């Protein structure tokens, strides 16, 4: 790298003298007035160090051999001076290679931890959502996982407000508390199949629900022959105790597109509604007893009016209790069945579209690895470049200082 000019440019006199010098060095005659320069040139040339012939001969041999025999005389010392220090370029390439390996390992680990394509999402206690993973036989949410939401208390809720003796909170043991929990559960299930199988899947789904003691609240079937498309939507109501088993059977009918389950704990509203109903009945009983002891006609009329109000209140509270009980006793399932021309037949074959999807997933993963690798590698490369530049600059400065120190 050239330093900036810190001297004035050469004057014509300087240029003339330098030309004269070059002429003298080439063996030319000195110009008039330049005899001392010619003498200086001769004397400096005579001071020129010349190499030892033996050393020169050894070096000649070394050059002939391509420097393959360093252990001969001066060339032997040369081998010790060279050492094993790698060039900056080799170090940079080595660092880049190491950085790339580290980047690939880190990216792979990150992808594994986050979950690759098709890996089920983690579940929470309130809802589970599962992506489509393949054929109808594989369900991403195993029955055991869905059963956690039911807790054994999803169904079989008694309509007798006095039947639930245990206090859902407070001092009741954990097992009893879990058994007495009331939950409002529902699920949304999406199935994918071939167009011409939508009706069949729908019919089989209805059969499954009815055999589990459930009912079809609403059903819709749509078929478009021209576009070779079909779909069905079913709103089902099944006993909460049969929900898990029913979902297991339904997911076996076709490829699961998605499955979402939700559960809301309604134990407190249930207990509250039951208690309020019991209180209303107790109040009516008290009023009836008071009516039986009434002496006065006015008092009796007043009590009769209160009894009437109490009966209305009991009716309202009974209805509310029934609604809450119903929510705990049954579960809603929204089932949608979609058909497409390619179909999602579970025949074990690997269709072109599936292959394309898999290829796309691999390319996405590879792109992610490269991106993460670059995110790790680029800063390392920048740091390496800065370090290399700093090293080169520092070495250049030290060399120039060595020359200045050789005065």
């Amino acid at each position, binding site marked *: *790298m*050239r*330093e*900036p*000019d*810190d*001297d*004035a*440019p*050469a004057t014509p006199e*300087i*240029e003339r*003298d*330098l030309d004269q*010098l*070059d002429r003298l*060095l080439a063996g030319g005659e000195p110009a008039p007035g330049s005899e*001392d*320069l010619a003498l*200086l*040139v001769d*004397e*400096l*040339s*005579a*001071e*020129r*160090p*010349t*190499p*030892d*012939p033996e*050393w*020169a*001969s050894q*070096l*000649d041999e*070394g*050059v*002939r051999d*391509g*420097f393959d025999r360093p252990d001969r005389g*001066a*060339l032997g*010392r*040369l081998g010790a*001076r*060279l050492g094993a220090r790698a060039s900056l370029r080799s170090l940079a390439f080595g660092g880049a290679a190491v950085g790339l390996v580290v980047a690939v390992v880190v990216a792979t680990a990150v992808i594994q931890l986050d979950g690759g394509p098709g890996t089920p999402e983690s579940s929470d206690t309130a809802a589970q959502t599962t992506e489509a993973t393949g054929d109808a036989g594989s369900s991403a949410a195993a029955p055991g996982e869905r059963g956690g939401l039911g807790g054994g208390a999803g169904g079989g809720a008694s309509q007798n407000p006095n039947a639930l003796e245990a206090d859902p909170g407070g001092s009741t043991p954990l097992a009893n508390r879990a058994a007495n929990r009331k939950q409002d559960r529902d699920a949304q299930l999406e199935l994918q199949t071939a167009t011409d199988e939508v009706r069949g899947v729908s019919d089989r789904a209805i059969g499954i629900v009815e055999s589990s003691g459930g009912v079809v609240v609403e059903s819709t079937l749509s078929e478009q022959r021209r576009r070779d498309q079909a779909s069905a939507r079913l709103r089902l109501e099944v006993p909460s105790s049969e929900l898990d088993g029913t979902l297991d059977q339904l997911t076996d009918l076709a490829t699961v597109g998605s499955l979402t389950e939700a559960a809301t704990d309604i134990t407190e509203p249930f207990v509250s509604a039951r208690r309020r109903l019991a209180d209303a009945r107790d109040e009516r009983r008290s009023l009836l007893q008071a009516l039986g002891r009434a002496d006065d006609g006015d008092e009796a009329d007043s009590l009769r009016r209160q009894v009437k109000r109490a009966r209305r209140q009991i009716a309202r509270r009974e209805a509310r209790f029934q609604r809450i009980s119903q929510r705990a006793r049954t579960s809603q399932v929204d089932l949608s069945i979609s058909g497409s021309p390619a179909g999602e037949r579970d025949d074990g074959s690997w269709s072109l579209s599936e292959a394309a999807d898999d290829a796309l997933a691999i390319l996405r993963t590879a792109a992610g690895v490269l991106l993460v690798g670059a995110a790790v590698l680029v800063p390392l490369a920048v740091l390496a470049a800065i370090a290399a530049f700093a090293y080169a600059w520092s070495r250049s400065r*030290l*060399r*120039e200082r*060595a*020359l*200045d*120190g*050789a*005065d």
Partner: protein
Amino acid sequence: MAATATDTERGSATPQQAAFEALYRSSRDDLYSYVTSLVRDRSAAEDVTALAFERAYRKAHRFDPTRGTRRSWLFGIARNAALDELRRRRRAAELVDEPVDEQATVPADEAELSLRRQVLRGAIAELDGRERELIALKFFAGLSNAEIAEVVGISDSNAGTKLHRTIEKLRRACNERA
């Protein structure tokens, strides 16, 4: 002394080898003279010169003709090697400690020549390292001003100006003492 016959003359070298050997033959003694002027130690100069040629041989593929001549590239390698040697030794050898070059021609009037030589050597000893380097590159190695600029890392104009100033310094010193 010219370099001896190489593979080029025997007809077995690659073009790259042939180019290197041609450079070697034309530069060996010049390079040695230049390096000796920097490190001021014959033994170290031999090692550094051999090292410079070794590095040039290994890095021949890195030569970029747009950045200068092959000679200036070679001398740049030798300069770095010599300065590294100076850093390692961390001492400056006095010119007066150098052994006399026995191959120098002996003029007829030895007394006068001896006096002039001593005056010149004294003047050279009073130059700083950079000025001595310029003298070595110009008078011992025979580099052009442009090549000197490439080796040292300054502009052509700056190299010419510094060289002229150094020569004037020597001329004055020799004329004053003579």
